[in-house]
């Protein structure tokens, strides 16, 4: 047959030798761990940078950091966290590991392309880090890289740093595209028998829709990157207007800086959901499993993910209310922004209703999931402030924005990353992570987050602007704000250092953790039903699993156990298709 890909009868060629198994590996599980490790390591760089910035803000002059270094740290912190950590770990890490296992495939559809995806990602990270070592250092233009200042003399790194940043982003986009094509095709075409799309765990739905967003949103960043690169290197004027600097006219003429903002945010807003949708999906599964209760309103959850994905493409200019664009745009974009709160709130209600009367186990993944709901809710509510034009204008460029953004897009997804690592680590290694260290790490991180970001809302109301190197001698900022800044810094340093607990736990449990067995959480989805743990090359041994039900059969009346794996046949436990249609 010319059409169908005959996966069932294909022979498995397991690679041999260390290099082919663990370095140039085409196995989705190894690639996932390569992606995650790289992302976490580069994330640590960004964490250290944020600690240095906090030291400068809380205790000015306490470390040797001038304003140039401050802006460079700020820019690199933002870009690394958003792109190179969160995007990479959700799509490249969890996407790679979980999609084939959860849909019952042996691997991604094109493993070689998948491998290339990781290596391109690694190169993009290296190019980015190389910018610390070029003349002038990395770019200090702010993570949004707005022209004209990003490529005008006077901005840190406007000569070499910005070039390396843009080149690195372009390489990252190529990597994300190669990976993304694999994820989408695998979900659409490589599911196992009986795994209909409405039986997929919500994790797969979240990553699937997020990947589609990535494939459609990254082109805008790619194009703006190419255009700015041309402006910087050969002197075109796409984004550069007629400008005077130091009394002389620059060689640019007639470009449109606001065009860059439109292109950037046409990517930038979907990017928020590229990170958030996988987190939504993962947390749905964590909540359902650790509350021993089927997810409430499965289909509604799927439609919410899809409609958030669609809406995310028509809200981008709410990042540009003060950019000087036509005010009528503001009205339109404020409306769409508030509309997107509807499916998002629906998801929060459904998580709560899943917990309601559930048998809640306060395991570490569950703690992180509960923390996510609370944090996401707080961050989402401040989003309603910023989504309205009239409220946003006085608040924009203050610490209120910093607090909102870090709550909703920084901390909330990171909590899901932690929870998910605690949840799936046993499948990756065969050992449990240490529970006590996990709980300690959780409480420091969770409470610390609130001690850091709650006061920032207040600083924002005081009018304290973001992105300033020093806050002395501004009459409108009361002196007491500085003591709050110092407090925030102390907590931030504690939380930052406490992340070592997590790294220690990962290393310690790999050798000393309690053996987990194949299905320690008594979960129903396919990745817990592999013949071996950790799964071998090809995942399923000789034959692919056959799926008979959705992934949320917990507490089914008449069933022997409180969970029914997806492979259990209807003869053993009847399937209630109506469960799927709540």
């Amino acid at each position, binding site marked *: 047959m*010319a*059409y*169908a*890909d005959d996966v069932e009868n294909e022979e498995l060629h397991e690679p041999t030798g260390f290099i082919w198994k663990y370095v140039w590996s085409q196995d989705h599980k190894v690639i996932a761990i390569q992606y995650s490790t790289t992302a976490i390591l580069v994330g640590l760089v960004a964490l250290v940078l944020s600690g240095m910035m906090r030291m400068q803000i809380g205790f000015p002059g306490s470390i040797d950091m001038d304003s140039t270094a401050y802006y460079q740290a700020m820019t690199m912190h933002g870009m690394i966290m958003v792109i190179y950590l969160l995007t990479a770990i959700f799509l490249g890490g969890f996407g790679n590991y979980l999609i084939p296992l959860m849909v019952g495939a042996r691997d991604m*559809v*094109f493993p070689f392309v998948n491998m290339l995806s990781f290596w391109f990602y690694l190169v993009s990270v290296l190019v980015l880090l190389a910018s610390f070592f070029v003349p002038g250092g990395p770019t200090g233009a702010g993570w949004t890289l707005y022209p004209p200042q990003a490529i005008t003399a006077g901005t840190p790194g406007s000569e070499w740093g910005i070039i390396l940043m843009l080149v690195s982003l372009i390489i990252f986009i190529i990597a994300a*595209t190669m990976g*993304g*094509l*694999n994820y*989408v*095709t695998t979900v*659409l*075409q*490589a*599911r*196992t*028998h*009986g*795994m*209909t*799309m*409405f039986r997929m765990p919500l994790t797969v739905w979240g990553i699937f829709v997020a990947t589609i967003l990535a*494939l*459609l949103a*990254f*082109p*805008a960043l*790619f*194009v*703006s990157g*190419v*255009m700015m690169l*041309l402006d910087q290197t*050969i*002197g*075109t*004027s*796409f984004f550069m207007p007629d400008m005077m600097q130091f009394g002389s006219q620059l*060689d640019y*003429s*007639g*470009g*449109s800086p606001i*065009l860059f903002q*439109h*292109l950037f945010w*046409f990517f930038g807003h979907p990017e928020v959901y590229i990170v958030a949708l996988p987190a939504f999906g993962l947390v749905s599964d964590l909540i359902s499993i650790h509350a021993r209760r089927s997810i409430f309103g499965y289909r509604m959850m799927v439609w919410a993910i899809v409609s958030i994905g669609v809406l995310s493409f028509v809200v981008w200019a709410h990042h540009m209310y003060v950019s000087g664009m036509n005010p009528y745009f503001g009205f339109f974009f404020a409306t769409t922004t508030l509309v997107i709160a509807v499916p998002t709130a629906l998801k929060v209600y459904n998580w709560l209703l899943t917990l309601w009367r559930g048998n809640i186990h306060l395991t570490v993944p569950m703690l992180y999931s509960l923390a996510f709901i609370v944090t996401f809710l707080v961050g989402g509510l401040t989003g309603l402030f910023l989504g309205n034009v009239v409220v946003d204008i006085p608040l924009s460029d203050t610490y209120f924005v910093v607090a909102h953004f870090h709550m909703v897009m920084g901390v909330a997804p990171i909590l899901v990353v932690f929870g998910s690592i605690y949840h799936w680590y046993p499948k990756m290694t065969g050992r449990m992570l240490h529970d006590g260290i996990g709980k300690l790490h959780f409480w420091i991180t969770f409470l610390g987050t609130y001690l850091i970001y709650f006061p920032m809302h207040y600083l924002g109301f005081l009018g304290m602007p973001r992105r300033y190197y020093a806050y002395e001698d501004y009459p409108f900022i009361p002196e007491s704000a500085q003591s709050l800044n110092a407090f925030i810094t102390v907590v931030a340093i504690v939380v930052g250092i406490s992340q070592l607990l997590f790294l220690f736990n990962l290393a310690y449990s790999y050798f000393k953790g309690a053996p987990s067995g194949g299905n320690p959480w008594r979960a129903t989805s396919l990745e817990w039903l592999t013949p071996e743990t950790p799964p071998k090359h090809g995942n399923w041994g000789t034959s692919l699993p*056959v*799926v*008979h039900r959705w992934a949320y059969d917990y507490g089914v009346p008449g069933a022997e156990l409180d969970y029914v794996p997806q492979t259990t046949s*209807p003869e053993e436990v009847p*399937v209630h*298709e109506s469960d799927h249609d709540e």
Partner: protein
Amino acid sequence: MDNTTQPTTSGMTGLIEDWVSDKDAFKNVSWGKTMMWIFLLSDTFIFSCFLVGYMSVRMTTDVPWPNASEVFALTIAGEHIPLILIAIMTFVLITSSGTMAMAVNCGYRRQRKQAAVLMLVTAVFGVCFVGMQAFEWTKLIEEGVRPWGNPMGAPQFGAAFFMITGFHGFHVSIGVIYLTVVALKVLRGDYEERGYEIVEITGLYWHFVDLVWVFIFAFFYLW
């Protein structure tokens, strides 16, 4: 074996039921073809952003835009013909789409020699296109058009021209290499067992590159 729900409803609900209810979302479509379609969708967004960016700077620049039909005019045998080179380029590229379609047809009839020859003909048309584009670039550069400025008007004219046609020409060049490699493998008989769908997948890419050219032609040269 499995109890997938049979679609019983009609309209939008039926469409969705049908789409989600089976193993493959697209029945009898191979992985490679699915992946190519999704890639092309993503690439469409890249070209759309390039074109939107070009239109946007064309509106913001305060210097008049050069008249494309004059800039791209050629004098052939004493006749001054506007846009003639671009017209020939467009004709060549659209012709190549025709030979590509014939190659796909031959592939499915398992006439592998004809399929390979037609693919190579398509590639030759592609080379002609890139050659003419190189000629056009040379001519404009000789007339003083640069990415950062030109004697005819707005500096963004040269910038957008070199960027967009360059990116498209790059796609055509990649396509020529892709076509040649696949054609040689077809000729060698590498696909006798698996079938000749690969010819169609290559064709999808090639038709896409042609289609993009039509939009560039309309928005850059005719506007």
